């Protein structure tokens, strides 16, 4: 279990419901490791600034991690934790591998989550 202040996605059903019921979703899939902890912190700090985005985390080694985020074509070539995936209307609009700064995450959110249409894949 990840020790963060984010809500966790723990089952495939939760993942599907989340994407079905929300337009904008960002999920950090990682472990409690040095490259992941800063990204959870960034997401926690941005939650109030982007109230319409659902920020979640997911255990990298759990079945839901393997069957959802890690199974996406967008993360196939990733080999740096965490995998962070941004969804809009159920579609992947950006995905990053490894540690990210608050500035980098803000840039992706502004590019892909603001406005009325989904942004380009990042």
């Amino acid at each position, binding site marked *: 279990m990840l020790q963060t202040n984010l809500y966790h996605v723990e089952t495939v059903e939760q993942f599907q419901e989340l994407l079905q019921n929300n337009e904008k979703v960002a999920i950090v899939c990682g*472990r*409690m*490791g*040095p*490259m*992941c*902890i*800063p990204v959870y*912190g*960034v997401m*926690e*700090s941005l939650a109030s*600034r982007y109230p319409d985005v659902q920020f979640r985390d997911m255990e990298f080694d759990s079945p839901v991690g393997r069957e959802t985020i890690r199974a996406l074509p967008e993360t*196939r*070539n*990733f*080999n*740096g*934790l965490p995998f962070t995936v941004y969804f809009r209307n159920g579609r992947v609009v950006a995905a*990053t*591998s*490894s*540690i990210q*700064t*608050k500035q980098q995450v803000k840039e992706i959110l502004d590019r892909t989550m603001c406005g009325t249409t989904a942004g380009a894949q990042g």
Partner: protein
Amino acid sequence: MDARYDVIVIGAGAAGLTAGIYLARARMKTLVVDHGTIGGQMILTYSVANYPGVAEASGAEIVATMRRQAEGFGARVLGQADILRMDLSGPDKVVEVEDEGTFTAPAVILATGGVPRKLGIPSEDAFQGRGISYCATCDGDFFMDQDIVVIGGGNSAMEEAVSLTKYARTVTIIHEFDHFQAQPWAVEEARKNPKIRFLMEQDIREFAGDEHLEKVVVVHKRTGEVTAIPATGAFLFIGYVPNTAHLKGIVHLNERGEIPTDDLNRTNIPGVFAAGDARVKRYRQITTAVADGTIAALSAVDYVNERARQPAMPSRRQRFLKERRPVQA
């Protein structure tokens, strides 16, 4: 929200959190601000085995305790808080923090630490997380039975290369000089490992591949010979640089960007102190950062108390009126 503090600490790594503990315990009203994750480099450390009094712990555990101590004594600790403006020149230092407001204090401690040194070639960013990594413990298992490289020649490079042999088929250590900076025991350990080979006096020219890293192109520094090394992973351990670019023109920096101080950790500006890896010093460790944070905090306490004892400086208007007053016969 109260905007006036006795001391503002910039940076919440080992040095900044320690300063926070000492300041708050001395009943200084203390604000510790970090633009990133609380804990700094300690958060990036899986296991710390040389912090006296703690047998072995993860960096994150030590951070959690230090933060609890600082907050327990009354310090306010803010993470992920971007500093928009900093004016350290006058007697009242001003620090403006995004979404939080503008804060003032007679003293500031700069504890901004270091950031990993990058090679600075364009392909480095493109392959981050797609082959390039800065953390062997985090990402090593992605490279099971693959050929990878480790770039660097210090202790971290040697130790991490050895640890990566648990996963990789081969590990090639690429170094720019003809000798290592690492301690002899660390080099010896790497040399003994049959999976490790060495490429010396090489500059990295390019990381290449399609969707993920496939090869690392190096150039021999003396002969100019170009070699493409097949590798799906490249782990970079080429040291840290002081995180002081934003302090240029604000406080004196040496040619390496480090903050010079005296032995009380005072900088060239009255009321501004420095602590930790951002300072000029030879050994950068948690213990030395903690010691620096202690010294800077106690110096700042003396400075603030001394200032409080001095009669307030007359304002420009008061001085003007005083100078105009006719001399009594």
